[in-house]
């Protein structure tokens, strides 16, 4: 069954066509990696799937729910890790997690939160105010939130951005683990080698068109776009 389905999705900003009737399908438990040059529309596509942007044409489904008409159901199914960390500077790491997950209706215990923070390597900073976190630590915190939410679909924008080498390995271990458990992961990235370690399928978005490619091409192709 398709966990994510995009059907002829189009998006334009003023007169600039970013997506031109893009169609794709990602199955349950798959990791789909999207590549493309800067400004190709990767983030735009991800934000459409996250229900942050309304497409100018076409439609999409997440977990069988219509992305335009059943937005609440879609939002319950997915979790987005994007450029924004969604953190409040005056709250601690622990409080930020409690708040973010509390709004989703979750109520993780402190030991559960601590375990997730330990897994992403920032357990020692649980009491620290989030204003003191580096960009990489904020990214790790977002992954910890995803671990606690356990969504059906995980959307990862610039999956490895801000992460150090250990962070990238931790991210890949997490993606491998959750896809084996049936979670669907949709990522945008630039690091072909690292992405090839976890991706089941890949695509290149360029000039508004999406072209599917084999994962092996990520390692062998001279240039993707």
């Amino acid at each position, binding site marked *: 069954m398709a966990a994510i389905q995009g059907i002829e999705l189009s998006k334009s900003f003023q007169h600039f066509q970013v997506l031109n009737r893009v169609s794709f399908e990602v199955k349950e438990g798959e990791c789909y990696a999207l590549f493309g040059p800067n400004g190709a529309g990767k983030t735009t596509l991800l934000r459409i799937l996250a*229900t*942050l942007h309304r497409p100018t044409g076409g439609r999409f489904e997440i977990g069988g729910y219509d992305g335009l008409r059943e937005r*609440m159901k879609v*939002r319950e199914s997915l979790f987005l890790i*994007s450029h*924004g960390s969604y953190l*409040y500077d005056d709250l601690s790491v622990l*409080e930020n997690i409690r708040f973010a997950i509390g*709004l989703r209706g979750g109520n993780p215990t402190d030991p559960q939160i601590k375990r997730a923070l330990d897994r992403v390597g920032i357990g020692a900073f649980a009491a620290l105010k989030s204003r003191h976190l580096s960009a990489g630590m904020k990214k790790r915190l977002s992954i910890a939130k995803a671990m606690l939410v356990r969504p059906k679909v995980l959307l990862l924008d610039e999956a490895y951005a801000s992460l150090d080498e250990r962070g990238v390995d931790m991210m890949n271990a997490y993606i491998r683990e959750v896809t084996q458990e049936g979670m669907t992961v949709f990522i945008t990235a630039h690091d072909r080698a690292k992405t090839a370690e976890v991706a089941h399928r890949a695509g290149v978005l360029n000039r508004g068109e999406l072209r599917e490619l084999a994962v092996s091409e990520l390692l062998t192709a001279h240039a993707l776009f």
Partner: protein
Amino acid sequence: MHFFNVIRWIAWKDLLSELRNRENISSMFFFALIVILIFSFSFSLDPKTSQELMPGIIWIAFGFTGIIGLGKSFLAEVHNDCMEYFQIVPAPKGAIYLGKFAGNALFMLIVEVILFPLFILFFNLDVLEKIPMILLIFVAATIGLSALGTLFSALTVQIRAREVMFPILLLPLAVPIFIGAVEATRGVFSGDPLPLYSDWIKLLVVFDLIFMVVSFWVFEFILDY
């Protein structure tokens, strides 16, 4: 249940942030204090004139204090894209509005309760036995102002001219609240029997309800597409 939990989480987050940085309450408090000092040094009022003028002076101070606080209500959400998280989180948007409203109304009431004794002190007001009724008027007017202010703060927070736009939008619609609050306060200060000024309190309650219901409904369209 989730609905009320969302209200609780938002109000908890706002109160905790405010307790830590005291940004809103301190700026509101010092503005109102300056208003009190300027008026107290400008006029030497006999008790009768004082009864006539004080309701207006009090609501000038509280009204503009409220504008300062309410205008900043969503500023914390602008940092780190937290406004975006409000959009994609699977929580009723109306509950998010009510949570923000609850925090704002509470801040305003705290400032009003701290400042009112200063009005009594500086202007020799003989109103001690009338305090329950005065508090009731404060609560009724604060609910209306916060209901409108929370909505317009969300509406203007992402625009460049927000500091200009916020009062331009808020003040004309808040006129019935100010009129009701001033007239009801005047009735209490003059020692009039309740039936003589109860219509003004009813007016406040009616506008509270109208502003709450409309803002609750409109907030979803501000936050979502």
